[in-house]
């Protein structure tokens, strides 16, 4: 090989065949980390030594004629809310500082079994609450394409790690857009699979009914390969769908002729004009490739953000109650148990996490439940019904991933509502449990990347990838 492989597909094939060693591949990525990580801060922890040991083992397997698996030697970064046995897992929160999980998340086990090499744990908004990775207790992650800007969030570290070539792929988690939005802002591919496709076992929960793990990669094919490796039924997650891995690689070259692509006529406005322009071009490209564009309505989509900011905090208020200083993580001593809880949680959680815990506790409280949480669940049902009607007319829907391109660090930190609006197009997908992915599609203001979001119905990953691959080809032209 004349040029070193950079893609998941290329590295996996080259390492398996012995053309390139896993150690070589790893060292190239570690060199990139050494060079640029101080300016980007994608990682909470770089696990270089463990990665070198793994890479050497992969090479030994190849030398001995054993197949290390489809991801042989592929350097992968893990969002720091995925449990890694013996390796600190912080959720970018002080409250979990020093905690080392005694077990691996299912996705971590599956990637390891496929031959992957883990390069480190990536930064995130604390407990995945945020859209800019500015809510991290350990500092902001900067956008590799413009380090005065945010990388998006909450999986900002994972998006930046791929964009900066610190890893060939990474995993993030998406509760309301936390994979897709940073993917769009960093110019990479990000996938939120159908709820239940990827096991949540070992993902530190933010909002359990919405959380889903997915990959970041440089291209659509790589995303397909990583998703196949991490998906499929897991008996340890009761919400896991009892079926095999999601296989989409065989549809990538099929084109979109005959497919119906939906345009949401009542899509909430307020996007950058360039973003609107790129979306229009995406529709044009698909039409040119033989797809039919159909208009659909999603009238309840505009209530999605409000419903989300009741449901997600409500679940979070319960999920985060376990951080009480009794068994692990931070403990601030106090004269009695209740005071210890208060002091620990006051010191351990950042402002945004506290804000959402209070919001969620209130929404579930006696006397308010029906008006807030109960009503939000009804909206969730309405959104689901709207999508069902839309998918009776269209195979996929297209929207911008984010209404805006990467914004300057600090621009929105004091305005939570404007930050929340970053997720207006991504949230309805989580409420419905559907898959969606962001594909880079040209640039917007200041030459920053724009992502187009492809949405599909439950288990519609094949058609979603089919369309995403076509958009990728169009964007390259």
């Amino acid at each position, binding site marked *: 090989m004349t040029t070193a492989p950079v893609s998941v597909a290329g590295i996996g094939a080259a390492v398996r065949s012995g053309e390139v060693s896993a150690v070589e591949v790893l060292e190239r990525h570690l060199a990139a980390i050494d060079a640029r990580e101080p300016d980007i801060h994608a990682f909470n922890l770089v696990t270089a030594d463990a990665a070198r040991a793994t890479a050497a083992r992969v090479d030994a397997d190849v030398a001995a004629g054993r197949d290390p698996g489809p991801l042989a030697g592929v350097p992968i970064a893990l969002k720091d809310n995925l449990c890694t046995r013996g390796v600190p897992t912080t959720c970018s929160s002080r409250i979990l500082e020093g905690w080392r999980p005694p077990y691996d998340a299912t996705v971590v086990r599956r990637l390891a079994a496929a031959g992957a090499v883990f390069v480190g744990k990536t930064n995130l908004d604390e407990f995945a609450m945020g859209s800019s990775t500015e809510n991290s207790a350990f500092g902001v992650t900067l956008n590799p394409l413009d380090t005065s800007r945010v990388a998006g969030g909450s999986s900002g570290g994972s998006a930046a790690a791929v964009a900066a070539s610190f890893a060939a792929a990474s995993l993030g988690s998406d509760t309301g857009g936390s994979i897709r939005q940073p993917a769009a802002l960093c110019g990479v591919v990000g996938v939120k699979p159908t709820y239940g496709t990827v096991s949540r076992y070992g993902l530190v929960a933010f909002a359990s009914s919405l959380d889903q793990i997915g990959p970041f990669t440089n291209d659509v094919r790589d995303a397909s390969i990583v998703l196949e490796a991490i998906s499929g039924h897991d008996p340890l997650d009761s919400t896991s769908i009892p079926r095999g891995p999601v296989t989409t690689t065989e549809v990538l070259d099929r084109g979109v002729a005959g497919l119906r692509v939906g345009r949401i006529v009542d899509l909430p406005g307020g996007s950058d004009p360039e973003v609107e322009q790129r979306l229009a071009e995406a529709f044009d490209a698909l039409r040119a490739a033989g797809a039919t564009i159909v208009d659909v309505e999603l009238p309840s989509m505009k209530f999605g953000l409000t419903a989300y900011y009741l449901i997600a905090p409500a679940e979070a208020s319960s999920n985060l109650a*376990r951080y009480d200083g009794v068994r692990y993580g931070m403990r601030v001593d106090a004269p009695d148990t209740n005071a210890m809880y208060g002091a620990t949680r006051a010191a351990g959680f950042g402002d945004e996490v506290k804000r959402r815990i209070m919001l969620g506790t209130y929404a579930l409280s006696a006397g308010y439940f029906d008006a807030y949480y109960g009503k939000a669940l009804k909206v969730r049902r309405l959104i689901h019904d709207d999508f069902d009607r839309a998918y009776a007319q269209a195979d996929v829907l297209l929207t911008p991933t984010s209404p805006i391109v990467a914004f300057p660090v600090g621009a929105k930190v004091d305005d939570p509502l404007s930050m929340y609006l970053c997720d207006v197009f991504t949230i309805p997908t989580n409420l419905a449990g559907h898959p969606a992915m962001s594909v880079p599609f040209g640039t917007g203001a200041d030459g920053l990347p724009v992502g187009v979001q492809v949405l599909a119905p439950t288990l519609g990953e094949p058609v979603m990838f089919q369309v995403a691959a076509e958009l990728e080809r169009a964007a390259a032209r």
Partner: protein
Amino acid sequence: MSGYTIDGWEIVVGLEVHVELATATKLFSASANRFGDEPNIHIDPVTLGLPGALPVLNRQAVELAMRIGLALECTVQPCTFHRKNYFYPDMPKAYQISQYDQPLNVDGWLELPGGKRIGVERAHLEEDTGKSTHVGGSGGRIHGSDHSLIDFNRAGVPLVEIVGRPDIASPEEAKQYVTELRQILVAVGASDAKMEEGSMRCDANVSVRKPGQPLGTRCEIKNVNSVRSLGRAIEYEARRQIALIESGEKVRQETRHWDETDGHTHTLRTKEDADDYRYFLEPDLVPLAPDAAWIESVRAALPMLPRERRRRLAEATGVPADGEAVMVVVERGQDDYVLAVGAAGGDVARALVHVKEAYAEQGSIPSVPAADLAGMITLETSGRITATQAKTVLSELLSNGGGDAAAIAAAKGFEAMDASSLEALVDEALAAQPAAWAKYCDGEEKAVGAIVGHIMKASKGQADGKAVSAILQARRG
């Protein structure tokens, strides 16, 4: 028990009984469900509520809970799990997974031995907490203690909470309810139901009212650790409430703690400081809908219940079903044995008496083969040995684990006395006790004792008391 009043007040009691299920593993994880081991050895990420861990429902627990429901004549229905949120150090997740508005079993009843039916509102599944030991301070309570130790072996153990309707009208009925419930739970193999070990716990909701009046304000009594305490606590609480009302005060709705040592109930918490549990649907679990085939297979496998067993034994022996002998023998699980003795040719009523009296310490499977006991009873009922001799033979059988009753009787020199020998003994006794005979003939029944005693002494206990009495009665005319 109907008509029970204290100073003209009726009491109304509803019982909430928690039972630990006799499963191999915990409700949501693979750790062993075992009592009495070294602390904190039956733990795992799920039990400890570690970040990222997820619950997986134990099928055996569901099946045992269904057995309880079906034995209590409940309807088994599709159900869901909720989170009950509150902070306590021995509750690892800071929420308990329980069932709320859609429990597994609803609308059943339990029949007391006397025939009265007590309604069962629901019997639902939930997880147990860990066990706290408060060190220092007084009374083993968290308040005022120096520090607390937590054993998580019990955390996540499956419980069924059986919520009875307020149909209980006396302390005695409450005791009968719990005793009967315990027998049912043991019979169906759902639990060992030991109040002293905490595998069965009982809270009592108590209120009082004048006949015909609406229900009074109730208090919930906790920490009742035996059937006897239950009766005492209910009676104390009823009298306390009556005294309050009669002195012009009001009963305050509250949770009260039964103190075994002073025999009083004390305020634990009032309604005002009750927790708001913020129940919401547990997003980490899916709805549980046992299908008809499963329900019917569980129903078909149910053993005969105590009520049925008592009826069967009563019919076979001609003794009342709620009489002491039948109650005791069924509770000990010796009824099958009694019936087997009958089937082997022994008088079944006599077998009931012997088993009740002689087998008290013998556990549920008497060591003497039924045919051997039948042989002994036949010797007795045919008059070949006396009742006193029968006891001697039986104790020989018990210590040998069986044997030929006739051979034992012969070896002991127990010989049936023929009628002429008995008549001769009577002649001799009457001659020796003329005064007693005269009194007896004058109608003083007690006087017969001296004559019978004389005969027994003279025969060295071999005379049959019944036969002697019959001769004496015949001679008196």
